[in-house]
């Protein structure tokens, strides 16, 4: 794998500003994680990998609330993106989510439960088969994944399960932005007596039915997940539909 990687790195470096090109690496985890080799094997098996500064993963270096650690993935500097995989090396459940940007830019904000300090990474596969990897370390005082959801302690949420609230911003500095929140306990299954219960898939389309983004979500996504997307043009409502692993479905229309 070494040879084609180097070719890819040189080719890319030629297209990038010098500072970014210097940071581009085709080997050696810049986050220096003991679990990188495992991560690479699990998620990127066999394909060429580049540590690429154009994949931005934004998260606080210290997470105040390990149940709700904000993560923003911005891969809009890359073209021809097929999919984006988000994972956290040291989480008991490593895979956080996957998203497939179609009509929407490769930009997604969400929150995750972290059990301990860990790299949070996004691996972006482009049409040429190369994985572009970005990430950041998040330090936390544990408890995010094995702490019960607030919902687990109260039956209240059942009445509101899969209720979606959201807004679109069509003007101002955040024009094109969509934010939505879905009522769901997102139980990890790691708390004794509470089986895994989480949203599995969300589809975003425009009013005409054209797909903007598909998101596959896993256990580490925070309770009552909140997502931030960016649209290039706001033409009408954004339609969101999805289901959880128990087969409950939801559908919502978010007006501009």
């Amino acid at each position, binding site marked *: 794998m070494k040879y084609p990687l180097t070719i890819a790195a040189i080719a890319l470096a030629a297209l990038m500003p010098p500072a970014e090109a210097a940071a581009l690496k085709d080997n050696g985890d810049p986050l220096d994680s003991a679990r990188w080799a495992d991560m690479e094997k699990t998620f990127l098996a066999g394909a060429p990998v580049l540590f690429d500064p154009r994949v931005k993963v*934004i*998260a*606080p270096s*210290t*997470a*105040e*609330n390990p149940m*709700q650690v*904000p*993560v*923003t993935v911005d891969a809009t500097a890359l073209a021809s993106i097929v999919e984006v995989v988000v994972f956290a090396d040291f989480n008991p459940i490593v895979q956080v989510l996957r998203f497939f940007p179609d009509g929407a830019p490769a930009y997604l*904000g969400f*929150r995750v439960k972290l059990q301990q300090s860990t790299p949070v990474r996004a691996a972006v596969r482009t049409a040429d088969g190369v994985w572009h990897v970005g990430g950041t370390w998040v330090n936390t*005082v544990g408890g995010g994944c094995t702490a019960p959801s607030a919902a687990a302690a109260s039956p209240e949420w059942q009445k509101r399960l899969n209720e979606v*609230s*959201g*807004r679109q*911003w069509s003007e*101002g*500095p*955040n024009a094109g*932005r969509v*934010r*939505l*929140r879905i009522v769901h306990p997102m139980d990890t299954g790691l708390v004794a007596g509470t089986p895994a219960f989480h949203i599995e898939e969300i589809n975003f389309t425009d009013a005409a039915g054209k797909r903007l983004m598909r998101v596959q979500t896993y256990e580490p996504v925070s309770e*009552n997940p*909140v997502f*931030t997307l960016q649209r290039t043009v706001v033409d009408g409502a954004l339609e969101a539909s999805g289901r959880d692993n128990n087969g409950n479905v939801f559908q919502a229309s*978010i*007006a501009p």
Partner: protein
Amino acid sequence: MKRLFSILLVVLAGGVGAEDFDYHLAVQAVAPDVYAFIGKTEDFTIGNGGNIVNTAFIVAPQGVIVIDSGPSLRYGQQMRQAIAQVSDKPVVLVINTHHHPDHFLGNQAFADVPIGALAETRQGIVSEGNAFAENLFRMSGDWMKGTEVQAPSRTLSAGKLEVAGRTLHLVALNGHTGADLVVIDESSGVMFAGDLVFNGRAPTTPHADVGHWLTALDRLETLVRDEGVRVLVPGHGMVTRDATPIRQTRAWLNWLTATLRESARAGLDMNDVLARPLPPEYVSLPMAATEYRRSVGHLFPAIEQEALESGR
């Protein structure tokens, strides 16, 4: 060379005061027979051993009343020694204003004395005390050695309390936590406000209900006016003779919630909110950047929910 190096190490250790685990507690007289120990306006560190909190005591006719016991066993012990330098009367009651660890982890040094707190505070100490203590072991290191949770043994409730020949007015409020006890010593006019009031240090919000907190501050300001309060001992920061720190705490909470609401309405996500700079008036306030960051984590999800739900 080796010797020089070890001398240097001793000097460094002495510089942070960690070598003998002496908090150097200094008794500050705030009114006749009323004294306080004023902590640093910092976060818990290995350097300060957790001495970031104010504790106090009243020398009453028949004994000493202690208000909050500090962040560790060592602190409680040193506090008790310092009290003994001022009065040879026995300690008759320890009061914990709320269930935050810097206010009750010195209780162990007063295990032979009744320790009182509001019912919800007692409950909070029992259920969350160990997790808090663990966190302080991580942040303050060996200063915490031997510290264990000593839960209060007596439930206090709002109203007048006669102790050792002194009348205390107990005011049960909430907002900083689910139960915040304010103590007013009638004969001296000293108000011990606990963490409802911060002075010259950004307030902490891990268990805050800001709406309730603001209501509590209004009540405190009324009490200061109507009950002849002459001295205000905040939970953190310098003692004052007026209500300025009450207004200061209110201004911070109002700014904080306005900022978070406005951010949520403008479509900011939590990372965008964290990246917002502090306004000029708070840039040099101790702990402002840290507490802002923490408060975003504690308070933004609920405020964001409000904004998203009202947007439909």
